[in-house]
Each structure stands twice: as structure tokens, then as C-alpha cells.
């Protein structure tokens, strides 16, 4: 046990301080802001244009669905803060996406490969670059400065969050708008293949999508919670077995304890790569388990959905999101709701 605790402490040398969450907002496949709407995989993707009008206030005719989802999700979050609070603040945008704008890449490349000569759309090409979405968002929000698009498959959101905390700790920015967005692009089987999902390396659930965002700040005033240390490590032993995951349980407990969260409820948010996840083991050890994935379906940045949703939910406590990559690399994000 001591060995595990030392290992956690070693890892924490490389991680960041708690960061106040000023606002949060999410969109799932049902496209109802901050709500778990009913949805069916075979009816996805739903048309997002009405929501764009409602949230953005004008149509985004030149943008594809991915860009629209990014902007809607981020604005749902940002609109919860009086705009005065962000005046003269240095704000960074950290957009994470596992697959990027497949929604516009696919039709473009299909046109390129048409035998009789297709007509690839220049607009689609320009939009297909992952950071085009961050550009649209920065324009809508009038944010100049640090804008980064991070992509690291299923650990994209956790990586962006870690980076945002690093930028804030360095004093480069005052606030960070950090989000994860991936969209459902048919077919579901292709989508699964794109994410390298198999029964032995992921949970068996429907495919989904989401655009989920945090606004992180420096001050505690008005905060709704804190993001505790984001832990990213290489995980030497391949995919962990959570049903017998004593080490993982202790690591999560240790992270919470080290940040003064020991008296609160401990709630695990299990990521989609935890193929052998057994809730009963955690419950027996005094944890609650909140399985958010049925609400958003599997998508590379589902962690963002799970954490943001937890932060806006009715309960309170210490939430720990745990996921890993097929290589065994792991990400643990702990958050405390105020």
C-alpha cells in the first residue's frame, strides 16, 4: 500500500493545483443544453441548426456540424457568466477533439475520389482543419490570445485540461475555456472502427456525441467547484481491470485525500475504455458510481461530458473520472463540486 501511495505522490509532482470552475455547460446527442435528453443511435446525428439559432443567435451557414456543436457547447457554458466578469481578462481556448471534423472531411474526400471528377468544396476543406472550429469560437466570443486544439484520441479532453491548468498556473491567462467535442458521423460501425472499439478494449454501449465545456478561472468567488489535479501517466501494464482494481481505487482515493476532499462523497465516473468495469467492487469500498455514458454514448471526448454533467448535477462530492487508452496510458481527473 505504501508503494502505491508513494507512486501517487511521485506522479503528483507533475500535476497541477486545483482550479476553480466558474461555469460549465454541455450538449449530448439529444441536443438539449445541460439536460439528459432521450436519444437513439440510429437516429443520430440530429439537426443542430435550430439550436445554433437559439444559442448563437444567427445561423452559421458556412460551418459544418462539428463547428456548430463546438460553438453551441462553449456558448452554453459562457453565457452563464456575466460578460462583465470576463472583460479585459486574458482568456485561452483549449478545444479538444479525438477525431476532429470528420463531419466535413468525409464529404470532401469523397468528392476528391469520385471517378468522374467531383467538386470538392473549398469551404469544407477550410473547415475540415481541426482548429477551424476554435477559430469560429474565438470569433464569436471575441477571444484573441492562446487558442489551442488538442487531439489525443480518448485522452484528448484530459490532455487539454492538463494543459489549460498549466497555462493558468504559469500566469499566461486569467481564464480558460476548456472543452471536448466529437460528433456522430455515420455509420456507427465506421465510427466504432475509427475509435478502435472492440469488446475486449471498451465498454459495450451506443455511439454518441457531445460538446461539453468548463470555464476555469483563478478566483473562488462564484465558483461552482474545482478541478483537482489532472493525472496523466503511461500505465505500464496495459488496460486496467477495474473489477479487481485495488490499486486504481487507492490512487483515486489518494488524489482526493491529498486535496482535502476526504470528507465528501466519492463518486467514480468510469470512462468507456474500462471494459471490465465492475461497479460493485467500488460500491463495496464506499464509493458511489455515476455511469454517465448512457446519457451521451461513446465518443472520444466523453470524459468532458461526464465531468461537466457531474458538476451541474444535483448532488455534491468528489468526482473522479477515470479512463485509459488502448496502450495503457491513463488519465484521472478529480473534481469537487462546491
Amino acid at each position, binding site marked *: 500500500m505504501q508503494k502505491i501511495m508513494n507512486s501517487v505522490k511521485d506522479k503528483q509532482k*507533475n500535476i497541477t493545483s486545483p482550479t476553480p470552475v466558474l461555469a460549465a455547460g454541455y450538449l449530448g446527442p439529444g441536443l438539449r443544453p445541460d439536460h439528459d435528453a432521450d436519444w437513439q443511435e440510429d437516429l443520430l446525428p440530429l439537426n443542430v441548426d435550430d439550436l445554433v439559432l437559439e444559442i448563437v443567435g444567427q445561423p452559421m451557414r458556412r460551418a459544418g456540424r462539428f463547428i456548430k456543436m463546438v460553438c453551441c457547447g462553449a456558448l452554453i457554458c459562457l453565457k452563464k457568466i456575466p460578460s462583465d466578469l470576463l472583460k479585459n481578462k486574458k482568456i485561452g*481556448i483549449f478545444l479538444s477533439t*479525438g*477525431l*476532429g471534423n*470528420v463531419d466535413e*472531411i*468525409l464529404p470532401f*474526400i*469523397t468528392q*476528391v*475520389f469520385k*471517378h468522374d471528377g467531383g467538386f*470538392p468544396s*473549398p469551404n469544407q*476543406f*477550410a473547415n*475540415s*482543419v*481541426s*482548429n*477551424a472550429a*476554435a*477559430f469560429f469560437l*474565438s*470569433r464569436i466570443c*471575441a*477571444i*484573441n*490570445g*492562446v*487558442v*489551442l*486544439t*488538442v*487531439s*489525443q*484520441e480518448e485522452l*484528448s479532453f484530459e*490532455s487539454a485540461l*492538463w*494543459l489549460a491548468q*498549466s*497555462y493558468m498556473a*504559469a500566469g*499566461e491567462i486569467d481564464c480558460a475555456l476548456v472543452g471536448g467535442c466529437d460528433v456522430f*458521423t455515420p455509420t456507427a460501425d*465506421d465510427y466504432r*472502427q*475509427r*475509435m*478502435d472499439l472492440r469488446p475486449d478494449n471498451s465498454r459495450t454501449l451506443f455511439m454518441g456525441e457531445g460538446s461539453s465545456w468548463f470555464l476555469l478561472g483563478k478566483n473562488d468567488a462564484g465558483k461552482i467547484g474545482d478541478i483537482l489535479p489532472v493525472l*496523466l*501517466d*503511461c500505465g*505500464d501494464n496495459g488496460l486496467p481491470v477495474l473489477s479487481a482494481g485495488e490499486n486504481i481505487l487507492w490512487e483515486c482515493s489518494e488524489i482526493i485525500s491529498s486535496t482535502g476532499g476526504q470528507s465528501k462523497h466519492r463518486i467514480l465516473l468510469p470512462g468507456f475504455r474500462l471494459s471490465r468495469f465492475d461497479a460493485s467492487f467500488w460500491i463495496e469500498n464506499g464509493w458511489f458510481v455515476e455511469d454517465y455514458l448512457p446519457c451521451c454514448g461513446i465518443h*472520444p471526448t466523453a470524459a468532458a461530458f461526464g465531468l461537466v454533467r457531474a458538476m451541474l448535477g444535483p448532488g455534491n462530492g468528489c468526482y473522479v473520472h477515470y479512463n485509459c*487508452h488502448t*496502450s495503457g*496510458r491513463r488519465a484521472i481527473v478529480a473534481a469537487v463540486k462546491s
Partner: protein
Amino acid sequence: MTKSNICIRGWGAVTTLGWSAEESAVNLIAGRVHPAAACLSPHLINSNYRAFEIPYSGGSLDKARLMLNSVLDEAIKRAGLTAAEIAESCLLVGTTGGLFIRNEYEFTETVRCNPQKETPAIACRNRGPGEVSDWIVRKFGIKGIAMTFSMACVSSSHALVVAAGLLEQGKIKRAIVVGYEPLLNLTLHGFASLLLYDDDQCRPFCKRRSGMQIGESAAAVIMEQDVPIICRAGNTDKEKPPAANKHVYKFKGGYLHNDNASLTSAGVDGVLVCSVIGQTLRKAGVPLQDIVAIKAHGTGTQDNDLSEGRGLWKLFGEKLPPVISLKGAIGHSLGAAGAVETAVWLSCCEKGIIPRSFGFTEIDPEIGFAPSQVNTPAACGAYLFTYFGFGGTCTSYLIIKE
């Protein structure tokens, strides 16, 4: 003056000029630069688009992996990294296309091998830009944080600046920054659809310029805080390999900025360019007159060169040091440009030569200067690097040769 002391310990590159940064530099300095030509890679379906293609007789996917392998091998060897040092390193990758080449190659191979069958729809099976870093960490045993930036032309230049920031903070011990961009139908047709492609020649800062040409390339740059022992003069530590570099190279003033005025242009008045470079110089504490030369973005497109040229002139005026764009010689390697142009430049510096700019014939009066047309001595001092990409992204940094 920033307190940072970020040292570039090793680098490697594969470009159309050679399968190493060293070979690329030798050929660049010698002027053995071939114009972009029709592409031969089996996955490319249209030979009308001339590009800077790395010669390879095998399959496109094998070549893609070999490129990555080569740049990392060269950089690691130059840096003298031990297996333990590799393991504790962090990896930051800058790429736009990533391993999208897999989709294109599998599709074209399927069509080629089944001439009698109806052509299937192309599938998009690659796992996103992050797939490149996954391949690298598994292959090389890197255990530190791995992260990919997918930000068009500034992907790897942004990665270099982010890496420097994380090193300054002590968040990471060592960064291996990789830029990677294979030739893709997606990007060749994409830039053609935007009318930004010059089928004839890439002519950075030239009055006759009419667009960019894509160059296939990859590079790795290894950075760490403080000058490693092996890079110090008079290293007598027998357990460390001998220094591969003649000089010490320090990374300073890394600045990245996003401008939301235009998706495709940094503003042709040059104000933004001027401001970004000004921030870099201030951050590094390096005065304008100390800049030895400028490695410009210089894509050969009307707008980029106008905004960059005007910005440089606005800032430096008559005291403008030599300006060089490498894109007339190796093409625009998009997301890899930051790492590739840095690595090739450093190898040129090691040889004591700043290479000349290729593709230029006539001064554009709206820009008002010619990029350097002769090789010049690479003196010790500060070299400025600039990149301006899609989505209003700007990167700028200095490398100090000591």
C-alpha cells in the same frame, strides 16, 4: 528578460532534400534543390499537382512510418539520449493530416487490386491526429505525457512553444517535438480548391508569386531546460556520449497568438505580424538589431507574403536582416513546418551557413524587399522564426546560437 534556459539538444528531419536534417542542409547549402514535380506515391490520384515529394519506392504507409522513424532516430542520436532519458521524455506532436494517409492508401490499393469491381466509398478509419503520437510512444518507449496539436500550418511550431513553456514551468523534464505531414490527396485537392496552389513554382515574396506548393516532410526537435552536459564545451563525462552539436542552441521568446479577424489571412497590412514579432522580442529581451536573420513563413501565397513582408518591413525598416523562406526549396510542410524548418535551419547553422531563399525573381513593390539570394555566414546570435496559419494562428520564436 525571461529566465528560461531552454536548450535544443537534438533534431532530425526528412525532407525532399534528404533523409536527414544533415543531408537536407548539405543539399540546401549546395543549391541542389529540385523543383516540385508530379507525384509518384501510389496513393496520390492526380499527378497535376506538383509537390515536393520524398522519393521512395515502396508503399505509402511504409514510407510514412519510415519518415517518423528516421527523424526520431536522427534526433535521438544527435541528442545522445539514453533509453531511460527517452522513457522520461514527453512527446508533443504537430500534425494536420496525421495518419489520414492510411485511408487514402487503403482505398487506392483496394481499387488497384480489384479493377473489375465497383469502386467502394472511401472510409475514414484513422483514429484522428493523435494516432501519430500513439505510434511513436509505443515504438520508442516514451512514457511521459503525449499530446498532439492539430492546428494547420502552426501545429508543430505551436508545439515547440508549448513545450518550451512546460519546460520553463518545470512541468516536464524533456520534450520531443515532432512535426509530421505526409502528402495527401486531401490537402493537395484542398489547397487547389482554395485556389492557393501554384502548379508551376513556389515563389516566396516574389512579385510573380501565385501560391504555395506542398512539401512532404517530418522532423523531431528535442528540447530541455538547461544545457545538458553533453552539449557543454569541454565535456569530459565519459559516461555521456560526445556532443554531436558544435554549438549550443537556445529557444527563447516563444509566443503564440490567435487572431479572429480572418480564417485564412493574417491581415495584409502587416500590423498583426509586426505585433506578434514585437511580442517575441520583448519576451526574449532581445533587441531588434540583434537579429542575425529571419526564417520567415513565406508560403508564396499572395496574402501571406504580403502581410508578412509588410509586417517585417514595418518593424525592421532599412535594418531588415536577411529574410529566408525555405518553402521554395522544400515546399510547405503544413503542420510539420515548424519542426522541419527549425531542424533544417539548425543543421545549416551547424555548417556555419544560412541558406538562401529559392524561387524568387522579382521584387514586389508592395513588399519592398527581396529575400536573401545568397548563402551567408551563420554567425552566433538570435534567429527569428515566424509562422502564420489557418484560423488566425501565429507563432514566433527565437533560437540563439551560442
